[in-house]
């Protein structure tokens, strides 16, 4: 990883956390809901922690150069569990395609939209409606 990439990580992480303590439940207004970025890379870390799960993923720029580290923020473990996730849905080294609403300030971070795993499984970040016929 280059110094530039590390700097990017620092800025992205700080930008994500600038609204307050790490992971404290907060508004997602720092992410731009009008833009979608697809991160195609290798998972560096999958943090299954309250109040917000995070994915850190190394992404190789299409224009070439060293991989860049992106930090993606998700909802809580409880909400993700109800959407079919587990704490082992991702592990370091997994190939993954993660769609995000990027940070408005252009740094390497975003709010989670969708995960496509290497096997083609799709995970989203919210809870579905009530299960039909069982309520």
């Amino acid at each position, binding site marked *: 990883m280059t110094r530039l990439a590390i700097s990017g990580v620092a800025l992205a*992480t700080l930008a994500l956390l600038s*609204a307050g303590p790490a992971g*404290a439940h907060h*508004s997602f207004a*720092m992410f731009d809901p009008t833009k979608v970025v697809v991160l195609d890379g290798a998972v560096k870390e999958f943090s299954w922690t*309250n109040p917000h799960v995070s994915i850190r993923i190394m992404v190789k720029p299409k224009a070439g150069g060293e991989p860049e580290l992106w930090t993606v923020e998700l909802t*809580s*473990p409880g909400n993700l569990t109800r959407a079919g996730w587990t704490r082992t849905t991702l592990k370091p080294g997994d190939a993954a395609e993660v769609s995000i609403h990027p940070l408005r300030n252009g740094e390497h971070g975003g709010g989670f939209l969708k995960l496509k795993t290497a096997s083609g499984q799709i995970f989203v970040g919210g809870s579905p409606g*009530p*299960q039909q016929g069982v309520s």
Partner: protein
Amino acid sequence: MPSRLSLSAVLTVLGVLIQAAPAPAAELLPSTPAPTAKDWASLASLPDWSGTWVPDMRDQGLQETSNPPPWTPSVAAEMRQAEAEEASGAPRGLFINCLPEGMPSWMLISHNAMEILFTPGQVTLLGESDGNRLRRIYTDGRAHPADPDPSFHGHSIGHWEGDTLVVDTVGVLPETFIAISESVGAPNDGDMHIVERIHLAGPGVLHDDLEITAPHALSKTWKTTRVFLRHRLVRDAISEGVCLQGLFAESKDKAGHAVFIPVPQDSGGNVAPKGQ
């Protein structure tokens, strides 16, 4: 005529008798009687609110614009500023300190699920997040305390009108927000009174019809409804959600014990990136 000795003996006996008697103050303390089999059986006639209730986030978003609180003029000006900040991507973040959302914000804007428990004389709401998300609604006929200790969730008493639970809440901390999103909301500033009518509105759909009176923040009573959707899978049950956990990292101490350590903070109070 009793001698000095016999008078002393009488006083001693009286003293023993007085000491053996129960302290009058203890007899005055209220207690909760043990529920009877009939009390437990009567719960079966209540509506089925089992399962996990997840807030309808889409409806929450619609409510934010379609039925805003009737703020007082000065609070309304503050809220317009907050909404502008939110729209520009610089939210204030009402709950970033991890204190409980409390009442009425838990019911209004939470993204997290809850379960509802019926026991004799009490309805209990348990929720994810905050680490201490708990509401007790007493249905045993008691009144509010004359001067309740202020708390995030207040003091709630309830009664059943058919299949509707009517809940009356006072004693909420004045700092607790009346929020319409995680960024937009105002402290209730005290003297808040909340009446809720909680009922099933359809299969797997729970409505909480709220009437919030907060004379220091609202110009009139605000009537609004929030919707919760039932989930029944085993994986849907509420799980532990300690908000403050995000401030710590899992580590080892010198003795090799598994411990939590505070995440290093930078000079601005933010968490420094790992590996720095």
